[in-house]
C-alpha cells in the first residue's frame, strides 16, 4: 500500500508540476464562475424567475400550494425525477409533460399549457447549458489533458528515473498500473471539479437537479483513459512523446469524425472499401461518436447504436494490454 501511495503521489506531483494541469483547473474555475455570474445577470435571472413563476402557476393549478420558489423548485425536481426514473433515464421534456397531472389533454388548458411549455423550456435550458459544458469539456479537457499528461509517460521511461523505480521491490505491472491510475485519478479530480461545480451552479440556480449530467465525468475519464492507452503504447515502443501525441490526436481529431459518419461514408464505398472502413471503425477509438452518444445520454434520447462505445472500450483494453506487455518485457 505504501508503494502504491508513493507512486500515486509521485504521479500527482509530476502532473502538478506541469503547468497545464494547473491551467486546466484555472480554466475550469473560470467556466463555473462565468456561468454563475451569467446566471446572476438581471435578464437571465428575470427569465428564470418568469419560468419559475409559470411553473409555480401550473403547480398551484394542480395542487394549489406550490407558490414559493422552493416549492416550485421541488415541483420541477419531482418532474425531473419522475421522468428520470423512467426508461429514458434523463430529464425528458415529453415525459415531463405527460407526467404532469391534468396534462392528459395534451397541453390543452390555456395557462396550464403555457406553464408546461415554460417548464419544458426551463428544463431544456438546463439541458442545453449542461450539454454545452459537457461537450466542450469532452473535447477540451481530454485533448489538453492528454497534452499535459503525455510527457509524463516518456518521463517515466527516462534512464535514471525508470532504473531507480525498477530497483524498488515492486513488480513492473504494479509500476505501470500505478502510474496510469495516478494519471486517471488526477483527470477524475479535474473532471469532478469542473462538472460538479457547473452542476451545482445550474442546479442551485434553476432548481433542476439533473444527476445524469454527472455521468459526463465517467464518460470523460473513460475516453481519456482509452486515448492515454494510445499514448502509453506508442511511447513504450518508441519513447517519443511527439509521435504518441501525433498518433493520438490523429485518431481523435482527424479519423474519429469520419468514423462517426460511418453510415453516410459506407454508402459510397465498394465491398473492399467497406471492409477496410469497418476494420478502421473497430480498431480506432471512436472519440467523436462516443462524445455524440454521451450527448444523447445526457438528453435522455435513446441510443440505438452502442457499437462505437463497445468497440472503443475493447480497443482501450487491448491498448493497455499491449502497452503493459511491452513495459513488462522490455529492457531499460
Amino acid at each position, binding site marked *: 500500500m505504501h508503494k502504491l501511495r508513493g507512486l500515486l*503521489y509521485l504521479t500527482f506531483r509530476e502532473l502538478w508540476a506541469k503547468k497545464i494541469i494547473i491551467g486546466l483547473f484555472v480554466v475550469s474555475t473560470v467556466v463555473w464562475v462565468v456561468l454563475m455570474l451569467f446566471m446572476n445577470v438581471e435578464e437571465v435571472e428575470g427569465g428564470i424567475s418568469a419560468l419559475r413563476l409559470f411553473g409555480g402557476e401550473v403547480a398551484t393549478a394542480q395542487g394549489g400550494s406550490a407558490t414559493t420558489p422552493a416549492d416550485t423548485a421541488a415541483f420541477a425536481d419531482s418532474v425531473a425525477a419522475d421522468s428520470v426514473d423512467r426508461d429514458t433515464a434523463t430529464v425528458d421534456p415529453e415525459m415531463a409533460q405527460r407526467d404532469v397531472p391534468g396534462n392528459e389533454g395534451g397541453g390543452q388548458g390555456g395557462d396550464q399549457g403555457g406553464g408546461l411549455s415554460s417548464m419544458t423550456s426551463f428544463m431544456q435550458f438546463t439541458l442545453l447549458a449542461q450539454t454545452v459544458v459537457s461537450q466542450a469539456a469532452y473535447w477540451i479537457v481530454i485533448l489538453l489533458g492528454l497534452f499535459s499528461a503525455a510527457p509524463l509517460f516518456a518521463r517515466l521511461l527516462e534512464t535514471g528515473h525508470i532504473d531507480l523505480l525498477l530497483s524498488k521491490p515492486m513488480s513492473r505491472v504494479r509500476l505501470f498500473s500505478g502510474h496510469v491510475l495516478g494519471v486517471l485519478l488526477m483527470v477524475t479530480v479535474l473532471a469532478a471539479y469542473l462538472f460538479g461545480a457547473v452542476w451545482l451552479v445550474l442546479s442551485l440556480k434553476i432548481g433542476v437537479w439533473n444527476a445524469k449530467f454527472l455521468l459526463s465525468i465517467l464518460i470523460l475519464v473513460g475516453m481519456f483513459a482509452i486515448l492515454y492507452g494510445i499514448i502509453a503504447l506508442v511511447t513504450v515502443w518508441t519513447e517519443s512523446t511527439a509521435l504518441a501525441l501525433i498518433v493520438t490526436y490523429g485518431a481523435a481529431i482527424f479519423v474519429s469524425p469520419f468514423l462517426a459518419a460511418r453510415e453516410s461514408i459506407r454508402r459510397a464505398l465498394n465491398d473492399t472499401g467497406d471492409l477496410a472502413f469497418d476494420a478502421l471503425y473497430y480498431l480506432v477509438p471512436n472519440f467523436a461518436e462516443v462524445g455524440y452518444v454521451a450527448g444523447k445520454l445526457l438528453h435522455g434520447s435513446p441510443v440505438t447504436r452502442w457499437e462505437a462505445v463497445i468497440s472503443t472500450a475493447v480497443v482501450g483494453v487491448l491498448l493497455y494490454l499491449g502497452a503493459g506487455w511491452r513495459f513488462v518485457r522490455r529492457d531499460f
Partner: protein
Amino acid sequence: MPEDAPAVAVRDLAKTYRSGVFKTRTVEALQGVTLEVETGEIFGLLGPNGAGKTTLVKSLLGIVYPTGGRAELFGVPATRSAARAPVGYLPENHRFPEFLTARKMLDTYGALSGVAPRERKARIPELLEKVKMAEAADARVGTFSKGMLQRTGLAQALLSRPRLLFLDEPTDGVDPVGRRQIRDILVELRAEGTTVFLNSHLLSEVEQVCSRVAILNEGEFVREGTIEELTQSEHVYDLRATPVPEETRQALPEGVLTPAGEPPPGEHTDGEALGAEATPAETRRYRVTADSRAHLNDVIDRLRRGGVELESITPRRQTLEDYFIDVVSRGEEGRGKEKEVRP
C-alpha cells in the same frame, strides 16, 4: 531468502542487445559472466566504457533481462521483485524529481521501497545528517549541485536499511571532502555487515575501500581478486641493502638486479618513495626480478656472499590504476592482433 546464500551470485550471465528494424545488429554486452560477492564485502567493479558494467548491475536489479545464465541476490532470482527488497541503489545518471524537496523526495522513494511512514519520519533526518544535507532538507532537488544530488541519492539508497547496496559512481561530482565522507560511510556500512557493490571510475577510491575487485572488459571478467593480489607485481621485488659490489652484480644474470632509479609516476613500495640515491643509513634501493621463490633465494644468497647487508625486501606493488590500464591495454593489443590475422 536463504541465510547462507551469497549477496550476489551470477552464473554464465549473458546479455545480447539487438537493434535495428529487423533486430539484426547485435552487441554482446555480457558473455557468460560468473561472479560471487559474499555478504559484508565491498566489491569493486571496474572496466573501461562499454565493458558491460552497467548491464551487469542492471541485470542484477531486474532492469534488463539477461539472454543467458542466471543471477541471484541472496539466493532469490534477480528477476523477481522480492529479490530487490533488501537492496538500495544509486544509479549513475539519476534523475530525481526536481520539483520535490530533498525530504519529500526521500519520503517518496522510501514509500516506494516499502518503508513504513513512521520509520521514514525518523530515518530521513538521520540520513540527511549523515550525508551532510540536513541544511538543504527543505530545498528543491532542482536547485542542487551534482555533489548535493549524489549525497541525497546516497541517502535515498540507504533509506530502506539495505543489506546490499549498489552504487554507480557515487562520488561523481563530489568534492574531495565529500568523497572522503562517502568513503567513511561505506567503511561504516561494511562494519555493519552491509554488502556494497561499487562501480567507480575513480580507481584510487576503489583501491581504498574495496576488499575485492573484478575487471570487466568486453563483457568478460579478465581479472578478479583482492587489491593486494591484483596490485602485486609478479616476480619483481624492491630491495633495500648496502651498496652491491660491482663484481657481485656482474655475477648475476642480466636484468636480475637493477638500481631502482626514479620510479614511474604512481609507483610506490608500501607507501615509500623509491629512489636510486643512498639513504641516510647508507643503503640503496634495487629492483630484483626473480621468476620463482628459489630463484629469489639464490639471488639473496649471492648478495649475502658478496658482503651485502639486506635491510628489506618486499614484493613490488603497483597502483590499481596502473594495473587496470595494463590489463585493459593488453586486452586491446590482443584484439588488435586478432584483427590482423583475420582474413
